[in-house]
């Protein structure tokens, strides 16, 4: 499948050259790429899921390596893996249940022998869930309809199967691929519509005459604020410009175009202004499992100022930004230094660039990081497409989207590489 390989390479190049801006675009494109990988993947007769998983992992590994800082890529790869597992699981359980039903009706001696796989499938399912989802009321409630639904779906979907008793394996494999692609499509849909889902909650959080501060530009924040504006809330927004990228200017321009009262301030004025601000609403680059946020540079400062003045610090994040990893030294390891030319004009400072110390190392260094790490204790609230959550709850939320196997496997493959 040369065309897929070409697609993958193309995307890899884009990632490496940092051509893709924003985690939303990245995750959408990753999901689309993985979808085509899956659809092109030839599935063997048995263990189709394993083949799919391997294929996705192989591609995913390259993608993650291409831009390890863009956590959204890894998130999407893991989610696709999770989807494959879940679909496979549900198909297996459905088939088992169907088999079981037919077995019960047809011959009794098979019962003993068939019970084993059913049990094992249930055990596998339980294990897969329980690793990340220890039994809680929610999982119990979620699982109940699941198990209840299985006979039902099997009776509808597996009706012909059970009736014909031929158990057409090829159709089952096609069904798995089909289901997975369906689910990935849903995921892509989720990613593209996460703005609207988050923005829907805006009126619940923004009241009349509120003063909101934000830094840099985030499409989610833009949609969120505009949604509140459309609901006839009038409020004003302070936008810190987010030097040296000046994304705040873009955001301010958009907000003004949509008729919001906007004030553009420098980043240094954040502390001065925050005492008159009711709420800080910002976007994120990624949300870690501990509730920490990888955010555009400068937000740690804003979060500290907000904490000092007891201003709620609200982070908007689509579910594709939820990363199942725990950060270690994220300021350095999950950061990226951009070109110094954004800070210093090389032409202007060409004379200074030549100065050397005694040892010959240059005297002038320029640091221009892209991201900041905001520790969970500084975040008041996360608003995701599934609602508002505390930072301390993020690990549970993340467990819904990823299977524990993938975290471990990912690490093993990357370390083995």
């Amino acid at each position, binding site marked *: 499948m040369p065309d897929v390989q070409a697609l993958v390479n193309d995307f890899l190049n884009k990632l490496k050259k940092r051509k893709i801006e924003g985690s939303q675009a990245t995750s959408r494109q990753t999901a689309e790429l993985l979808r085509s990988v899956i659809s092109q993947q030839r599935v063997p007769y048995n263990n189709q899921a394993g083949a799919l998983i391997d294929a996705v992992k192989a591609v995913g590994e390259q993608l993650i390596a291409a831009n390890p800082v863009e956590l959204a890529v890894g998130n999407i790869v893991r989610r696709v893996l999770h989807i494959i597992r879940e679909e496979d699981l549900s198909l297996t359980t459905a088939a088992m249940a169907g088999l079981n039903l037919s077995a019960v009706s047809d011959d009794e001696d098979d019962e003993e022998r068939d019970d084993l796989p059913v049990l094992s499938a249930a055990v596998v399912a339980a294990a897969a869930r329980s690793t990340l989802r220890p039994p809680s009321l929610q999982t119990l409630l979620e699982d109940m309809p699941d198990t209840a639904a299985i006979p039902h779906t099997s009776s509808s979907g597996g009706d012909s199967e059970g009736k014909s008793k031929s158990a057409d394996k090829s159709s089952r494999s096609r069904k798995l691929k089909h289901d997975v692609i369906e689910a990935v499509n849903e995921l892509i849909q989720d990613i593209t519509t996460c703005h609207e889902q988050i923005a829907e909650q805006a009126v619940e959080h923004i009241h009349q005459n509120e003063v909101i501060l934000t830094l840099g530009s985030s499409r989610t924040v833009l949609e969120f604020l505009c949604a509140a504006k459309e609901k006839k809330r009038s409020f004003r927004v302070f936008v810190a410009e987010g*030097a040296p990228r000046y994304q705040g200017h873009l955001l301010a*321009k958009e907000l*003004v175009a949509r008729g919001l009262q*906007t*004030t553009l301030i420098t980043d240094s004025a954040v502390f001065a*202004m925050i005492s008159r601000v009711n709420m800080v609403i910002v976007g994120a680059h990624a949300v870690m499992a501990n509730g920490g946020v990888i955010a555009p540079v400068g937000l740690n*400062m804003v979060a500290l100022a907000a904490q000092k003045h007891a201003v709620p610090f609200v982070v908007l994040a689509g579910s594709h930004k939820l990363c199942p990893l725990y950060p270690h030294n994220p300021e350095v390891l999950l950061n990226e230094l951009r070109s110094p030319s954004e800070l210093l004009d090389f032409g*202007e400072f060409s004379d200074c660039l030549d*100065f050397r110390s005694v040892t010959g190392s240059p005297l002038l260094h*320029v640091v221009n990081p892209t991201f900041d790490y905001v520790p969970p204790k500084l975040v008041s609230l996360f608003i995701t497409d599934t609602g508002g959550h505390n930072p301390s709850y993020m690990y549970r939320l993340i467990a819904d989207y990823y299977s524990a196997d993938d975290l471990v496997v990912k690490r093993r493959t990357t370390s083995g590489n």
Partner: protein
Amino acid sequence: MEARRGWRAVPKVRQVGFFTPNEPPPPARTQSGPPDSNSPPLSNSPAGNSLSPVMIPPPRHLSDNLAHRATSPLPVPETSAFRRPIPGGDRVAVVGSYNPTDSMLGASPPLTSPSSRIGDGEFSEESSPGWFRRSNSAKFASSFPGGGFDLTSIKSSETLEVEVKKPVEVPEKSGVAGAELQTESQSSSKPLKAKTTKAERRALQESQRAAKAAAKGEATGKPAISSEGAATSKPVKQQPSRKKDALPAATSVAASDRKGVDRPPEKERKKEVPPPRMQFDDKNRVEKAKKRAVVNQTEARNRVELFRHLPQYERGSQLPDLESKFFLLDPMHPAVYKVGLQYLAGDISGGNARCIAMLQAFQEVIKDYSTPPEKSLTRDLTAKVGSYVSFLIECRPLSMSMGNAIRFLKNRIAKLPLSLSESEAKESLCSDINRFINEKIVLADKVIVRHAASKVRDGDVLLTYGSSCVVEMILLYAHELGKQFRVVIVDSRPKLEGQALLRRLVAKGLNCTYTHINAVSYIMHEVTRVFLGASSVLSNGTVYSRVGTACVAMVAHAFRVPVLICCEAYKFHERVQLDSICSNELGDPDAIAKASGRMDVNYVDNLANKENLQLLNLMYDATPLEYISMIVTDYGMIPPTSVPVIVREYRREHLWI
């Protein structure tokens, strides 16, 4: 009294300069000669008690306050205090009054032991040739403030001779005035306090009249004054200070004397409460101010609601307009005009530079000044300076340090001795200004640099924000001392002052890292000290400085990195402030829209006139004191909570040097 002082746990700072535990007032009294002068304090004590509800003395000075307060309208204790130094006691007084300075200097570790102090002095001789040349001349080589003042102490011995002829006339006057005032003070104390300004004005007139009278004949003038009763209390009380003014060089001695002798009366303390600022949302006052204005300012249109009370004008229009008027405006002195234009254009920035430029312009003004006929120099010059100041305010709002300098100058003018001829007065004012610049800015900076450099260790990573000239001097000095350290320069839009600093430091061979304010939490991991400049330090410990300083200090605090504010004491102000909104300065909003050197960033350029987009260019912010570990000032290194102490105790010195 001695015992009381001994009991108090006096903070170190508080001792500096003025309170000299080993300077005994009793000898002053015994030396004062006239035996009748001993009796008034004693007989006055009931009167003093009756006064106390009006002027509540701080408890610690109770004993001496009662005596001095009660007699403060009387010249007697003053004269006695003044005469005390004559028998060679002046040198003792100087040494005594500066002892605490030494001890405070000793508080900084490297200067603690005498031997190290000497060694330090020698060391600086070698390393920085320009600095310590004069310290050779006197025994004060060890401690800087002493070195700064040693000239004065030497001079004082000779200049004090001038005083000798004064006490001859004062005692006899005091005999009359004392008796009168004793009776009058009870009745007059309240009205005096109620309408201070009126009494002041009257006092001024009185003193002028007295001057005229003095010109005719001294003997006839004196009774005229002493018979005036309540109003006289002012000029009589001023006399000692006037005498001191006659000897500007001796003032450090005189100031310390006076400090010990008379506490500021209540009414003066009231006067020193800073006047409310102009609020620009007050339509009436703005209209009035506009009529007087020289600079034609058009109000910026699209303003931030929160900052209506601050002036913001359209940029760019005034400068050419003013430049064209340069030769037409005769009421404005060209030097002041030039400085104003420089402020407006932003050619001069930085608290010290602006203050020095202003003071030098005023020096020019004073040199070219001649009193118009039928006017007194004091009043006319004060009015003139006032009008110049309001012109400068139109160009750019004054910084608090400049306000302090203006207050100093006006005070000097007001306190000019009437006996001086015009040329002498001008001479004295010019030298006062010079001394202010020298002592309060230049020397203070050097002291700060030495203090702060002691806090730099090998291997340190020092972070600074923006461009502060004191911090720059500290870094260069520490580098000269051979300390190995790295500098992180944090900068922010729109001024990007750090770039100039970066260029200068790198050219001097310092290892620099440059970054912008957003990345401050990224870089703070490696930083070991934060050195920040300040525009002003307010008496609640708030540091009022370039916008962004608060952010840097906050992040440093969060990362447990000590924050050192380097600020000359003349920038301390008794104003208090909790936020950065109530009082601030607005810069050019268009500077926000454009990113300098970045052609690709022009998103909001064409939107500047949109109704619902405002651009806010704040110039300053207020750093709360909990983020500040230490303030390095010319009086030593103090915690931010001690700022009000400095402000309170040194205010009189600020004003009257």
